[in-house]
């Protein structure tokens, strides 16, 4: 990762609350996936969520933009309460960007169209302006020259960077990442992580499910460990990695760092 990066502590975190989750519970049928989740995220925070497979990491961040419904407790994003009210859901979704493990680009649209679609139809931005914004963010993720290609013609790393640009075009105040690098070859992971680091430096509020521990150390100001649908431990990255408290965290860390 790049040298000239500020340490996590230097990046600003404000007191303003971006996301507050209170006693949130979720069930799939009778299966209790998320149990009493309490989490407050301030604006500008970079949070890395890790934990064993099936622990509910994806489910948690998908609840934040209502891709999954929760059944108990409250989630507030930027002061808007997430309920079954479609207006609130739309409002929250337009403020929260999301990147998926498998990119989920729209294969029938060009890269540029992928990026301008939501601004044009959701934000009602004029086409010209939307294209300018899209080119701005494509430059930011360093692939403006691919704008007229289709997603199928790009490498995985490029596709994931397009997916990030596509979310940024909606000018979100919060970004969610669900294992953005785990479907990528090692040499492509770096280019995606670099893009994410840049975002973090600009003060974007980020929640990121990832097992890239280097990224967590470098960027996160808080690491959350989940197991069996619960938040088991959270701490600053140095403390979290060097001095894990709970035995489950210790076991998990020894497994992923051990080899």
């Amino acid at each position: 990762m790049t040298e000239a990066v500020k340490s996590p502590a230097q990046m600003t975190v404000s007191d303003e609350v971006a996301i507050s989750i209170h006693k949130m519970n979720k069930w799939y049928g009778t299966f209790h996936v998320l149990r009493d989740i309490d989490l407050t995220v301030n604006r500008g925070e970079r949070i890395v969520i890790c934990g064993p497979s099936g622990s509910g990491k994806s489910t948690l961040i998908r609840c934040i933009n209502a891709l999954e419904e929760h059944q108990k407790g409250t989630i507030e994003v930027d002061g808007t309460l997430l309920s079954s009210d479609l207006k609130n859901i739309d409002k929250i979704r337009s403020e929260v960007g999301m990147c998926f493990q498998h990119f989920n680009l729209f294969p029938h649209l060009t890269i540029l169209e992928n990026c301008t679609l939501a601004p044009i139809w959701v934000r009602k931005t004029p086409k010209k302006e939307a294209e300018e914004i899209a080119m701005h963010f494509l430059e930011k993720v360093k692939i403006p020259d691919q704008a007229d290609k289709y997603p199928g013609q790009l490498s995985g790393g490029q596709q994931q960077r397009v997916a990030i640009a596509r979310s940024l075009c909606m000018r979100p105040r919060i970004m969610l990442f669900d294992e953005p690098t785990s479907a990528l070859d090692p040499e492509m992971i770096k280019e995606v992580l670099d893009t994410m680091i840049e975002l973090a430096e600009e003060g974007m509020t980020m929640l990121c499910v990832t097992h890239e521990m280097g990224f967590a150390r470098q960027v996160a100001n808080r690491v959350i460990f989940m197991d069996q649908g619960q938040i088991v431990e959270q701490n600053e990255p140095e403390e979290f990695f060097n001095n894990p408290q709970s035995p489950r965290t210790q076991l998990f860390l020894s497994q992923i760092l051990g080899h």
Partner: protein
Amino acid sequence: MSDTHAESIRFVRETTLPQAEPPVAERGIYKWGRENLFATPGNALLTLIALYVIYVVLSAVLPWLLNGVWNASSLSECREILAGETGGCFAVLVDRWQQLLFGFKYPSAEYWRPALAFVLFFVAAAPVLFFDLPRKMLAFTALFPFLAYWLIWGGPVLVPVVALVGFVVGYLAYAKLVTRSFAGGFFGGIAAAAVTWIIGGFIVDWLSGPSSLLRAVPSRDLGGYMLNFMLGVTCVSLSVPFGIALALGRQSSMPLIKWVSVVFIEFIRGVPLITLLFVASVMLAYFFPPDSNVDLFLRVVIMITMFSSAYIAEVIRGGLAALPKGQYEAADSLGLDYAQAMRLIILPQALKISIPGIVNIAVGLFKDTTLVSVISMFDLVGMIRGPILASTDWNGVYWELLGFAALLFFVVCYGISQYSQWLERRLATDHR
């Protein structure tokens, strides 16, 4: 060869060999023939058998085609001219082409009207089929159904005008109300259109005298290939949107919509088309108000459309199911609403996957329009089986007439199939 140092292992090429032609046996027709026709003894045997079969077929068909009689007034005259030799009696086509194309009751002075509508149809269909054409042309496409109705059926101009105004009013009401709720917009639009049509109906009755620009032709006077073509075009273009609606309805999270769609699709698919057509011809009249006297053509259109939209819905459902869940999630996470996600993301991809299936159904539907001959409508097949073969002049000319019918259907169906292959290539953007 002096350009290599044959005695040493080290090798440096000092001259460039000139380009040479491949040997004769490896070129052009020889190579192709050897590789494709005579590659192995078994292969060669099959080639010879195939050649023999082609010879037998051609030696029977060619004289029949080439020696055919084009000028005669009856089958017996044909036979006299042929004097025992083989030859088709194509004179029947020359004598009866008008009936084959337009039916036997459409006034011959008005043939130009359906012919014009036929030509305009291609103008109207072009922007839908070839989306590189300017989008403004779609305005004509929207007007075409009303224009074609007026051309083919004639009668007072006000009828299609009122129909058109009804649609426009309905759409305006929909656009105004839909911002508040979709259901409000939907039913509000339908209500506004219905009111316009009822009021318009009174105005038409009140204004229109016997004199109208185009002479009115009742539906029962339509016939021939024109009838097949009209049924095919109308039903295909109606059943695609209905099919999409049913497929989405079947996926809906609202139980009422879901179950209505499921029951409709399963019921229609379980019933033969012929049965539905008989229902259309005798029973459907009971479902309409007694004095409404809904036209047989319209009833048949409704039945065929219901039938094929159920099939198209199932094809599209397959396309929808083939899309990864991530596409829905990406659309949701960007804040697109249901209608936008469907229109911009889901349907373009699902329809692309469904093209072969939809085309298959469209081709089948077009050919199935000949079934209306069973409920005594005189379409192309009905004309042949009825008035033409029953006439004393042409009783017994089967091959020529049915071959002609087959040719007409083949031209259209082959055209549809070629178009769909072009479309698939045009839409291939995944590069996988």
